[in-house]
């Protein structure tokens, strides 16, 4: 880009920024929600949007931010497609949002980092957690979901603690679950154990009988499902129906009460790795029941994180004392380990979550309980 272009762009951006500051003093504070609300991932995207709007409503009911300004949400539907997510991000950027909360599919989140970076918009990434996002982050984004490494470590400890030798790992062929599956496989074989089956299923496939036979035939003592609850519920059902007696564990994408609706009885005794959410903190209990009564279904696996993301953004805006991008980004990064629904948040220099506190949950009587070895 030559100097002239740069100069013109810089002037345009500056004047836009000045314009937004001038406007921003009175009206509501606009926050963008980046999530897939159409397409095959809309289940999770709507979940995130619901949780974020719940948080925004609570903040508004408490008098809003910065001397009574209300929060207004705009959706940026990504449909989990990289192109569409860049479109959505540019639209949010041109609507001069004070910040963006969301990010579900890693592949669709990654190209938006540049868009928000160029516009200096603070971005709280609530669910996407691929390690590829870390170097792509220009510094304006923070990731509040732990990366797969931490969970793979928890899985290793858990399965070793159960005395398991042969493990079957099943993923869904998307970035998140494939990443977690690969990390777990490497950790498991690295520790000298055997991965007896490493399998893929397609999203939306309902019949896992061939897979279940293969897992049983491989002599696996335990199965680790690294993807989401909806298909995981079906897999668990079919594993138990076909007489698989071993341990079944699921990743944090399956940590939803909805798993019990789908898997029914078969979910009893299933383990899940998770942030210490929902039913273990008083605030979280309140959240779960508010969510249920407002939207008619139980919060999904990323609902607490999405709620936290909105609350964190609000906290940062309050702390920054303005809707200035730099100030909010600075405030976000200064998060010093306060307790949120999904645990304390503070950030590493790479803007990722600076903790690993995965806990193990066990399905009992149709709900998750804390599992102590």
């Amino acid at each position, binding site marked *: *880009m*030559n100097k002239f*272009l740069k100069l*013109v*762009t810089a002037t345009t951006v500056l004047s836009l920024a000045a314009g937004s500051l001038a406007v921003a003093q009175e009206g509501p504070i606009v926050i963008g929600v980046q999530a897939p*609300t*159409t397409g095959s991932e*809309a289940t999770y995207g*709507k979940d995130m949007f619901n949780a974020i709007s719940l948080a925004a409503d609570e903040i508004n009911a408490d008098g809003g931010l910065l001397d009574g300004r209300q929060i207004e949400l705009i*959706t940026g*539907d990504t449909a*989990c*497609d*990289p*192109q*569409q997510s*860049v*479109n*959505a991000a*540019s*639209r949010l*950027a*041109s*609507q001069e949002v004070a910040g963006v909360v969301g990010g579900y*599919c*890693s*592949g*669709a989140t*990654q*190209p938006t980092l*540049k*868009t928000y970076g*160029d*516009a200096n918009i603070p971005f709280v990434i609530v669910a996407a957690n*691929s390690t*590829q996002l870390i*170097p*792509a982050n220009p510094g304006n984004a923070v990731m509040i979901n732990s990366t797969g490494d931490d969970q793979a470590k928890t899985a290793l400890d858990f399965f070793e603690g159960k005395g398991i030798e042969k493990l079957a790992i099943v993923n869904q*062929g*998307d*970035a998140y*679950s*494939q*990443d977690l599956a*690969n990390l777990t496989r490497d950790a498991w074989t690295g520790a000298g154990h055997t991965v007896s089956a490493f399998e*893929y299923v397609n999203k939306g496939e309902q019949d896992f009988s061939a897979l279940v036979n293969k897992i049983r035939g491989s002599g696996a003592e335990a199965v680790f499902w690294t993807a989401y609850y909806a298909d995981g519920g079906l897999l668990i059902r079919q594993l138990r129906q076909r007489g698989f007696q071993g341990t079944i564990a699921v990743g944090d994408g399956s940590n939803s009460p909805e798993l019990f609706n789908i898997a029914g009885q078969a979910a009893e005794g299933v383990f899940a790795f998770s942030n210490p959410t929902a039913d273990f903190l008083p605030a979280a209990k309140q959240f779960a029941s508010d969510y249920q009564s407002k939207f008619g279904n139980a919060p999904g696996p990323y609902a607490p994180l999405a709620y936290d993301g909105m609350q964190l953004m609000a906290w940062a805006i309050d702390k920054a004392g303005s809707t200035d991008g730099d100030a909010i980004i600075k405030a976000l990064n200064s998060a010093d380990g306060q307790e949120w629904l999904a645990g304390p948040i503070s950030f590493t220099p790479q803007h990722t979550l600076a903790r690993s506190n995965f806990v193990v949950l066990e399905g009992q009587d149709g709900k998750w309980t804390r599992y102590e070895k």
Partner: protein
Amino acid sequence: MDKHSPPTRPDVDEHDAHKTKPRNPLQRLYAAFESPGRRRALHLTILAILIVTPWISSQYTTVILTNALLYVVLCLGLNIVVGYAGLLDLGYAAFFAVGAYTVGILTQQFGVNFWAAIPFALMAAALAGVIIGGPTLRLRSDYLAIVTLGFGEIVRFTARNLEITGGASGLSHIPEPSLFGWHIDSSIDFYYVFVVLAVLAYIASQRLFDSRLGRAWLYVRHDEDAAEAMGINRVATKLAAYVTGAIFGAIGGIFFSVNLGAISPESFSFQQSVLILLAVVLGGMGKIPGVILGAFIVVLGPELLRDFGTLRLLIFAVLLLLIMLFRPSGIWPEKRS
């Protein structure tokens, strides 16, 4: 699509009968655009609008227009396969993927210069065109549809399963190219790159349409056997359509990958192929301005409906249905037959 349908196309007959005076206002408008004198002025006006737009509109407009121009390139490419040669292709995203991944792998993993990687991507795409074209030459359109669909899915699954393509996460940090010291990195830079690509694709499509090969495609589309009897090499002609279409798709993919800086299998799904086909048929198969119009509708439609949230695709579907019901041959159909 098949050779039995042309005689039953009411639009064609109707138009032929009233060649000198188009009847409805839409036809009159199209006819106005098609007169050679006005065409030149029109081209210049559109080009001027395209050049000025990013300076008078928001970054969002620039980004979605860039997207629309990418679709123009892809749709013109598919138009060669579907519109010119009459071969149904439900896996066009495969060519798009081949271009994007070849450049992504070469530049990001082997440090090859972007411009040096382009010939390899084009060769890979041409090869893919031959591989897909080869087995399908004997097939009728509906079987062709499923074979191309199968190839598209095979390409996507391969990209998801291999390590060199980055698995499901795909490739990231694909370096931005430079051209004579101009570092192409902002959205406006890429917008202009895609303006150039779309213009080139437009010119190439026009030239192909008027060429000997273009007429050969027309013959093959209407009657393969008669075409062969006239001395047209059926196999070579069909393969040429696939290869040309593949190269258009790959060019789109090459610049798509550096524009986003990251590619992953979800960009090359079956839905992507279907969307491109939709644009071509909606606009008017074989008709260049129609196809361009289709590309813009398919990209801008869902964008303009964003305020409807979850309902936006439902509304888009209804609009699509209405357009097709009122313009069954596409918005701006091809009349040459």
